[in-house]
């Protein structure tokens, strides 16, 4: 289809471009500029060049935040996709009971992050939380899960998986229902068992759905803030300090706009790299 006038495409793209420039390009540019200053919002900014980046890189703080955020995202995406797909396969059946269970699983996704975080704080409470009690019954030594630097981040990832699994399940269910029954029946007639039908028919046809779930879960996990703010405030010993929370902490609690801006820039570059890798993977997949 050809536009009637050369400016028509620009008119269509205009609102989106304006929004992107106003709320994305300009803020990132401002953050990049402000990252070169020492500034606390209240006193005049002072130019410090790359000192904010150097301070964050010192003692491996920046690297740790990046690795921690990536680790959390990997756990959340892998857990969400595995559980979401498993539940979708289990619950892709007619009947009121299955509909009820599907609704129950999905309900976690509808609840706000704040409510989810408070619920899990109660469950994981070191004094009398159900999870701790269950672990003790199973013979595990008493451990304050959210107070232990080794367990706090995996615990937050579990909360993320619990919240997002319902969403992944619904998307996978939609994907499963788009798999033609005729293909599955043909495979069955050819002697393919349940595993082979899933491996060679369902899985390839679910690939675009899986890519969508992976992308959206990745985006959500990178944005994790509420759950950290409420459950651990980045602790213990910075073990749950993820990027967005670290930015919040630098600017609002530690009074440093410059370092928060430097973190924002690094986070942006990291997301750009991840998005680039994802795009490249899709392009390679599209090639013959």
């Amino acid at each position, binding site marked *: 289809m050809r536009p009637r006038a050369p400016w028509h495409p620009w008119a269509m793209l205009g609102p989106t471009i304006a929004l992107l420039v106003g709320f994305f390009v300009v803020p990132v540019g*401002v953050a990049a*500029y*402000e990252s070169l200053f*020492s*500034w*606390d*919002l*209240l*006193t*005049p*900014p*002072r130019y*410090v060049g790359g*000192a904010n980046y150097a*301070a964050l890189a*010192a*003692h491996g703080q920046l690297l740790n935040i990046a690795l921690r955020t990536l680790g959390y995202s990997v756990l959340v995406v892998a857990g969400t996709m595995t559980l979401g797909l498993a539940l979708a396969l289990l619950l892709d059946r007619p009947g009121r009971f299955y509909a009820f269970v599907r609704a129950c699983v999905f309900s976690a996704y509808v609840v706000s992050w704040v409510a989810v975080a408070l619920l899990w704080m109660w469950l994981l409470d*070191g*004094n*009398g939380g159900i999870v701790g009690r269950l672990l*003790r019954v199973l013979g595990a*030594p*008493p451990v*304050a899960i*959210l*107070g*232990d*630097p080794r367990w706090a981040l995996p615990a937050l990832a579990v909360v993320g998986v619990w919240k997002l699994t319902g969403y992944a399940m619904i998307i996978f269910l939609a994907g499963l229902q788009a798999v033609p029954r005729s293909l599955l029946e043909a495979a069955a007639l050819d002697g393919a068992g349940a595993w082979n039908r899933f491996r060679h028919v369902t899985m390839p046809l679910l690939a675009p759905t899986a890519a969508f779930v992976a992308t959206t879960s990745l985006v959500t996990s990178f944005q994790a803030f509420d759950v950290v703010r409420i459950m*651990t*405030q*980045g*602790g*213990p*010993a*910075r073990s749950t300090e993820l990027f967005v929370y670290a930015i919040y902490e*630098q600017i*609002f*609690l*530690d*009074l*440093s706009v410059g370092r928060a801006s430097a973190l924002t820039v690094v986070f942006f570059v990291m997301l750009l790299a991840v998005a680039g890798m994802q795009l490249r993977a899709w392009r390679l997949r599209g090639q013959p």
Partner: protein
Amino acid sequence: MSRLARRDLLRASLAGLFVPAVACRQRARPEMRDGRVVVTFWYAYGDLTRKVLLDLVEQYNASQSRVVVDAVHQGDYYECLAKLRTAIAAGAAPTLSHLVCEVVPYLARAGVLEPLDAYDGAHAIPFVPALAQAGAFEGGDREPLVAIPFNRSTPIVFANAYALQQAGVRPPRTWDELESAARALTRRSPSGEVRWGFEVPISWWYWVAMVGQAGGRLVESGGRVTLGGEAGEKAIRFWQRLVSEDHVMRPPPGRDYQAWQSSNESFLQERIAMMWSSTAFVRYLENNARFPVVAAPLPADVRASVPTGGTMFVLMRAAPDAEKQAAWDFVRWMCEPEQTIAWSTRTGYMPVTRPAVQRLIERGWYVGHPNDRVAYDQLADVAPWPWAPDLFRVERDIVEPRLEEAVLTGRDAHELMDEARAEAQRPA
């Protein structure tokens, strides 16, 4: 457009990126409601303290017809501070708020706090010296008066009297006694349940107390941040020993006031026998414990030493003059003996004026409430805060996370403190 004009335009645009820096301007007109000046008061309390404060605000509002105080809850101290700074930068600051001591020098240097020297009777209020700006900070009397004591506290020991009796120990007076008392008080059941002998939030305030007790100073008189030198490291090693070697202390989960709250709850549930906490919780703990609560001064190492805590009233410079005058009227009212007494006896915070203390003594309050007396007596050992604008950054960004790291991961105290001292020398 000439090259010069273009450059000017570029400069102006870049300056625009920091617009909030120049937005700390004064609001011109005071807020009025029914002919009364509105004082917006941002406060940071929960539970009992919040209720007592709101009762007092209501009482003040009913006591006169010129001023109405609008008290707005803003989360805990740090959340309130975060909102306050942002509001100041956005030109939307409240009239009145209250701040922890460590942040006062920083905000005073930023020029956002109202100097109070010229306010009516500002130097005539008979404060308990260690709790007012002049005594709570080294050199606090040489700085313009910007902070008026409000809810002031010190850390104290709280112990379960039954547990002490059963174990045959008394509240410890030295670090060595603390270690042996914690051992004696720790109980392990066959099912793995532990009643911990001792608990203290791994946080700045308590560490500062121990630095003083071990003979150190956070900042030397020349302004160099030493974080107590060897004393700072000794304090960390003592915690590490109690947690990882003796297994008699549990660091509570959570950060900041979440950890404090967790300790209080564990104490009330008899999961810990003895803890360090703020005198602010005296009434709360006494009212909610199923056992007698005993308070005691913090133990000494080479000397006795405690920091002061809680907050001080500050007026925001950007507020209109009429609002500031009205806020000052409220602050003075709060400093009158009866209000000070009500605030102190209903919460556990220390009475901040001498006449209030005198009346409490005359009324026999401390005879009936010996736990309230502990913090007051401990004022003899107060180590004033340095008037150091960087102190808050050092606390939040540099020391606090390293304390947790040292205790929870066992990292070497000397290495961590060396790192912290180097970080403190780096410009913000």
